[in-house]
């Protein structure tokens, strides 16, 4: 274990060197990074799959793996927020710190202020410690990542009755595309996952504890906090808890009363629905179109009517061959793992599914012993669904979000296969190394699937590429607005600059999500006609921040402003110069790439148009 801790340090060091090489434009940097991750995960996984390892060592090893992967994530974002979603929640946290109140509107993500669990905790830390919000957030994310791993390990351990299966399952869970980056981002889903894992553990604890102490003092506060933290996670947690209860009720042989079985899922559902109703059901409007579009596109993909080209970004960038091969290999390995372990997992849960042991009575099929394991095994079916969704443009994000939940099942199912079949009780280290390699491939492919080519940042600015678009010049422009214009002005800009304006600039940005107006069509219009003027007036926009770099490249995410128009080529630079000759439009800032035009006089000029 200590040798592996030393190796983890070396891995993080190599990863930081790779990040520096990447900034200098070295092509091999990404490969070096992934090799260093593999060299770290492989021995950890090879050790964990062996039968004769103590429980503490297993737990320490999975914690070590999680710490190593978290530190690698810090290398991606070592000084300030660069990930898109972190900005959304940073804006909400800033509002809380500034006003001392919750629920202030956030145009970047209108649903964020009404699910403020994460921001409450981090602003409390900031207020009490005096730490900068970024540092407080990273410290907090680190601690909750460790707690999440412990909770997941204990949950799997209770479900499988084996620390070995639990440790392997946690390690396989790290192969979820969102594990390394998305779920450690300063985002409400990251905290909600921790509450989810603890809620599952509490569910087990209440089963083993007499009375209702665990329900009242642990389950109720945690489920309430989960409901206040994240819509989708609280809903899925309720659903999974309900499935545990339903399976326990179906099998007829439970020794618990119906009330005791149902109290936790009912509480979870009540808090989820109750909070959602209290704040006006914003989830439906927010998630409805996301899921609707994802399902539509998935159906079209399954009917061979279109979809997204795998490994090709929206700007046409193709992933290197070795990354494509690793990802395909990972999907193949996971599918093999699921295929060879699915019935073993059900059999371990007590479902009589093994050949030669099939019962003659149908009732015997519903006499399983382990409801949670049955449920988790069925949850593994979400994995192929997430893969299909990832093959579509609209569904990519949903597929990525399903990952953490699908891997709850994938992890334990494959772990059971490894512990009972692939490695079994064998002490053969070569076999363990082979399995360790397979797990390392899954983890690496997970990182790649979730983060694409920009895990180490980008040597050069990329258009609409989230972390690869956040750079000091654009930050400085937004900070300039705060200093010289003041805060709270109505600004419109592209996907990246509006994040910076809302956070560094403290401006009130205009978004389609919040204002229901797409000013992107005004920014890219050839001229300001009556329709454009009407949009400017309706949105009461004061300033446009125009980034000339948008005209150089296609957007990596597929859109410059909000999802909508599909671009085949970058816009003509002339469209951004249309403001130059408009009487009443002042260019108040220019740095050669970014300019800020004040349209307030033009907007309010009754004679315009």
């Amino acid at each position: 274990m200590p040798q592996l801790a030393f190796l983890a340090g070396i891995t993080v060091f190599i990863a930081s060197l790779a990040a520096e090489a990447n900034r200098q434009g070295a092509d091999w940097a990404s490969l070096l990074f992934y090799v260093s991750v593999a060299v770290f995960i492989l021995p950890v996984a090879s050790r964990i799959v062996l039968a004769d390892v103590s429980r503490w060592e297993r737990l320490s090893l999975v914690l070590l793996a999680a710490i190593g992967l978290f530190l690698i994530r810090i290398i991606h974002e070592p000084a300030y927020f660069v990930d898109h979603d972190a900005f959304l929640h940073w804006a909400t946290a800033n509002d809380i710190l500034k006003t001392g109140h919750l629920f202030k509107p956030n145009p970047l993500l209108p649903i964020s202020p009404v699910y403020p669990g994460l921001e409450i905790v981090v602003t409390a830390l900031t207020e009490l410690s005096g730490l900068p919000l970024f540092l407080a957030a990273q410290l907090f994310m680190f601690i909750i990542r460790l707690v999440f791993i412990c909770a997941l390990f204990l949950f799997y351990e209770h479900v499988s009755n084996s620390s070995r299966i639990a440790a392997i399952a946690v390690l396989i869970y790290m192969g979820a595309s969102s594990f390394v980056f998305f779920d450690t981002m300063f985002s409400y889903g990251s905290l909600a996952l921790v509450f989810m894992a603890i809620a599952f553990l509490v569910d087990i604890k209440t089963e083993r504890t007499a009375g209702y102490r665990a329900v009242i003092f642990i389950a109720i506060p945690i489920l309430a906090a989960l409901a206040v933290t994240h819509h989708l996670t609280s809903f899925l947690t309720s659903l999974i808890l309900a499935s545990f209860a339903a399976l326990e009720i179906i099998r007829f042989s439970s020794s618990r009363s119906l009330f005791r079985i149902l109290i936790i899922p009912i509480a979870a559902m009540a808090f989820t629905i109750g909070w959602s109703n209290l704040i006006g059901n914003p989830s439906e409007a927010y998630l409805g179109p996301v899921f609707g579009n994802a399902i539509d596109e998935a159906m079209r993909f399954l009917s061979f009517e279109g979809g997204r080209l795998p490994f090709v970004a929206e700007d046409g960038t193709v992933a290197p061959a070795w990354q494509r091969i690793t990802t395909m290999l990972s999907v193949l390995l996971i599918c093999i793992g699921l295929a060879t372990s699915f019935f073993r997992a059900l059999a371990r849960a007590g479902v009589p599914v093994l050949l030669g042991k099939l019962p003659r009575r149908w009732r015997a099929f519903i006499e399983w012993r382990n409801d949670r394991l049955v449920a988790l095994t069925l949850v593994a079916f979400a994995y192929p669904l997430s893969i299909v969704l990832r093959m579509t443009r609209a569904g990519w994000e949903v597929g990525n979000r399903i990952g953490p939940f699908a891997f709850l099942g994938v992890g334990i199912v494959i772990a059971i296969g490894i512990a009972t079949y692939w490695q079994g009780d064998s002490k053969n280290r070569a076999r363990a190394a082979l399995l360790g390699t397979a797990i390392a491939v899954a983890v690496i492919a997970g990182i790649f699937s979730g983060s694409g080519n920009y895990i180490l940042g980008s040597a050069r600015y990329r258009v609409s590429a989230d972390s690869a678009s956040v750079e000091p010049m654009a930050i400085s422009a937004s900070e300039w607005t705060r200093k010289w214009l003041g805060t709270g002005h109505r600004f419109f800009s592209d996907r990246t600059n509006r994040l910076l304006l809302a956070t560094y600039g403290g401006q009130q940005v205009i978004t389609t999500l919040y204002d229901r107006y797409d000013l992107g069509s005004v920014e890219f219009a050839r001229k300001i006609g009556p329709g454009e003027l009407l949009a400017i007036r309706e949105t009461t926009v004061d300033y446009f921040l125009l980034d000339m770099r948008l005209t150089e490249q296609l957007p990596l995410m597929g859109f410059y402003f909000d999802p909508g128009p599909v671009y085949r080529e970058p816009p003509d630079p002339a469209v951004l110069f249309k403001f130059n000759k408009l009487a009443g439009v002042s260019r108040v800032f220019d740095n050669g790439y970014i300019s800020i035009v004040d349209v307030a006089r033009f907007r309010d000029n009754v004679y315009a148009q």
Partner: protein
Amino acid sequence: MRNKVVCVGFALGCLASIAIPMPILVRAVIALPMVLFIPGYLIIKIVFPRERFGVELFVFSVGISLAVTVLSGLLLHAASFMTALGWSLLLSGITLTAAFFVKCNSETPPYNVLDLSKFQKFMTAAGCIIALIALYQAREGFLSHNEFSYTELWVVPDKGHDSRNYILGFTNKERRPTDYDIQVYLDGQLLASWPSLRLVDGQTWTERLFLPFKSRSIKEQRVEARLYKTEGSERYSQRVWISIPAERQKPAELTASGDLLDHNVLSSYQRNGDH
């Protein structure tokens, strides 16, 4: 008993950190457990007084503390008291109240975790130190990476003064000392100029301007500031301007759809883009 005293000590420390100025590090050491662990730990001690404190109860302690903080936040919001003082009073209050109910004999010995040899401890410590060095190196490399060098030029109203008072300014972010000339034109006529300004990297130059705009004009009034920077034998320009629309202006003049392309600005941008 010892743990209970430590928890009470943290609660009192949290209260003191608001009243007495303390270094950030000390405040952070107090705040982290107060937000993430101590309230939950004491509640767990009340709920499961005889259970051995292992990983499971640790996880529950953190989970409950987080939940308590989230729910306290809602309470503080309702009370309009979401400040450092509010947090300190509430979390310390919860901790002290919970500590009151914890039985002194409820502490149980912790589990023996990993028993490491000296060499193993050395390896673990070395791994941690190397990781910290890596993070420091990553941060330094990240902060020193600036793809673009540029000059920020601006003109903004001078707040609190007559509406014809403006501030003209620019900041050198070229990462080297640079020579500038700046000229201000009103409707094409030179109004003022500041030649041969040399600014080092990061330096800002500002000047208050009184722009003689007419209060009522039948045509657009435009003041334009042109900044010229010299790099070797090359001379580049940037422009900002203030435009006051005419009292009455025909829409046709506002949208010259045939010639929207401003060639000066485009060429300036293209030169900057070559950096």
